[in-house]
């Protein structure tokens, strides 16, 4: 199922399918299409989202997370 990264529940895994914002910065941080990630936490009052990508843990703003499409339920 394709959902926005910002809607991914805590502790769930998903695969990045589409980046609808400037992908370069995200790529440089290790978030790339086809990579599997895990939602670590979302901060309250529309704060940043923290995800785990393999060994990398990165934090991004909520608006950025809304522009990333991930697929859940795959066992990639």
């Amino acid at each position, binding site marked *: 199922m394709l959902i926005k990264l910002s809607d991914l529940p805590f502790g769930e895994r998903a695969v990045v399918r589409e980046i609808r914002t400037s992908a*370069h*910065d995200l*790529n*440089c*941080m*290790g978030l790339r299409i086809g990579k599997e990630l895990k939602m670590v936490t979302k901060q309250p009052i529309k704060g940043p989202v923290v995800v785990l990508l393999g*060994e*990398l843990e990165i934090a991004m703003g909520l608006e950025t997370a809304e522009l990333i499409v991930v697929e859940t339920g795959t066992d990639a």
Partner: protein
Amino acid sequence: MTEEKAKGNADLPEKGTTVLMLGNPNVGKSALFNRMTGANAIVSNYPGTTVDFTSGTFIEGGHTYTIIDVPGTYSLEPRDAAEEVAVRMLRDSPDATVMIVLDATKTDRGLYVALEVMERGMPCIVAVNMMDAAHEKKITVDIAELQRILGVPVVSTTATSGEGVRDLAEMLRKAKVADIGAIAQRLRGEEQERESVRGCGGCGGC
């Protein structure tokens, strides 16, 4: 130190080689820098900017190296003032050797900027740092294989304990320009120069 320099290198120019230490933020670059230069580091302001950088010198094998700790960067397409300075430093010292520092637990991210540097045709050496953390996380990096693919010297280091730092300093003189086309070929499995690599033990520097 000075004695060693005097007898080892009568015929070499005195100004030494500039080494730019480049890599992602938080890969232990500063720790590595401190290990290599000891106490004689100088913090300076990069002209026309507010970004500070550290430089220092050390002597290895009778050769003087001026080593510059370039602000951490993820790519050569800069995002902020510090990354901008990193790019300008590369441009301003075209004769420099680039020491690319990778975090062994996050090799992919560091390799991106490493490839960008290699495309510029500057002589390179790669330090795979934070080997202790990688070991803890049960991540193994095949240093010999990485060296074979990249075609430049690759040394594993743990800056916090000093492990491998000596080797890194010694290998600096073997830094060489990577052939990016050959890297692509080797990755596709077209390994025309396999024989020669095996012949010399694959140190990649000779």
